[in-house]
């Protein structure tokens, strides 16, 4: 039931607009699979979909070069997200309900200023965020939801 053409929640992510305002559900960490619908030519993104063993991946690539992957378990829950692109994606949307926990973990870091590569690891949330203008890359996952047998290095 996943549409092949994304009128990109992702573009809205990057542009800072609110996809929810356009009546479109959005998948963040821990959420359900996004329902992506065609809506016109002003969104620039393509969704592709691949299936692994016990999980599936939705990949959204925007014209800017931003690429977001959402990893879903067999129940359709997003257990991980990865990103790479010229700017940092809106992590409030990608991390969903977990953003507050992430922000608190950042604030608790020693010497947070100018960290160019960060890893915060809690039992229920791991976030790695790195890079700089022109090339940001990162990943976040919920350890409890990662399917057994899934290889974490595959989260890219």
């Amino acid at each position, binding site marked *: 039931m996943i549409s092949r053409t994304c009128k990109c929640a992702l573009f809205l992510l990057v542009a800072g607009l609110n996809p929810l305002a356009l009546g479109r559900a959005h998948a963040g960490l821990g959420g359900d699979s996004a329902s992506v619908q065609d809506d016109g030519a002003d969104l620039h993104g393509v969704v592709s979909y691949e299936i692994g063993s016990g999980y599936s991946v939705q990949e959204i690539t925007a014209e800017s070069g931003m690429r977001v992957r959402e990893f879903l378990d067999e129940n359709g829950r997003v257990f991980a997200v990865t990103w790479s692109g010229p700017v940092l994606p809106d992590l409030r949307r990608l991390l969903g309900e977990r953003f507050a926990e992430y922000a608190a973990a950042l604030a608790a870091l020693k*010497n947070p200023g100018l960290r160019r590569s960060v890893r915060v690891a809690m039992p229920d949330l791991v976030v790695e965020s790195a890079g700089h*203008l022109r090339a940001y*890359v990162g990943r976040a996952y919920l350890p409890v939801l990662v399917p057994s047998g899934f290889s974490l290095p595959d989260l890219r």
Partner: protein
Amino acid sequence: MGLLSACFGGNGTTAATAIKTAPVLNTLTLSVDSGPTGASGAINHAYVSLRICLPGSQTQCANIDHVLLDTGSAGLRLVRSVLAAQSLALSVETDAQGHAIEECVSFGGGQTWGPVGVADVSMAGETAAKLPIQIMDDTLAGAPPPPTCGANGTLIDGVSGFNANGVLGVGVFAQDCGDMCVNAGAPLPVYYGCTNAGVCSAENVALTAQVTNPVALFATDNNGIVIRLPNLQNANGDASVTGELIFGINTQSDNALPATGLTVLGADTHGDFTATYNGNPLVLPALLDSGTDSFAFDDPTIAVCASGAFVGYYCPAVAPQSVYVISSGVGVNNAGSTVNFAIADPNTFVASAAAFADLAGGGGSTNFTFGMPFFYGRTIYVGIDQRAAGAYTGPFYAY
């Protein structure tokens, strides 16, 4: 008559006197210490001082100390309250609609937001005239940040957040964003035009208006920088370390490229070279980053300090732990190079020291960052994109 001859030359004619221009003073003291007054506690932060003036003025100026040296970014960013404390109010750039240009820049630890001001910035004998700089708006005197910039507490604009009065980005690019912020079909959420009412919209900005690496605007010595730092006297903690930031590569006698023994790592269009860590085949983007306080990478086999002053960094069970990283340049300068380094146990560190040689950790699995520990005891070159430095052309890192 004889004396006059001796003065003017043997045959009585005036010897042609070449007017010799003294080379521009291009060296600046680099100091690793615990940070500015009121925001100390920094570790492995290298600082410089600079002079900033209203454009064209020699009197409406301020001297700013404890500006953090950052080879991982481009552009100067200064905290607004620091400028205000010295009564320096810069004029803000405006776009074609007359809206104030402001900027949001993200890093791992958070985001910084504030308007783009214009100033003359001088360091040593070099001046960057009409330099666009980011004013980090810790007092929110300008427009509030848009929702995507630092919402829910990840905004860092103040001295305490950086342990610095500002950030001097002298990395491999001339502008912080570059072409991708000039004519994107959908403007990236980096530069914004903000109305008087504080409503901000992402927009494209010409290169000349973007926040710019000051070195790129120097009249000379403008192709990159050299950083020289000695080894620590005590690897487990020096109270301070003094070195040099030198402007220009191969432009004066004090910044000549060595004939041998140089490792040159070409950087890609993003400013990264590549690295593999300790035998793991995964290729990671990498950079030499003075703005990072450790070797930052992920090694799940090494224990993480669970508490204490170095919580989050590596606390190897058997210390020091020896590891290595193989770096590879991109493009023409693609020689590989192996760097062996040690990870010490931070629990052995000198409390309240400001410089530590063998500190590692805190990083994610997606990158390898050579932070300040790599800089101690080395001469590091950072060459600016498309500028020639001896036989090389930027962007590159070298050591």
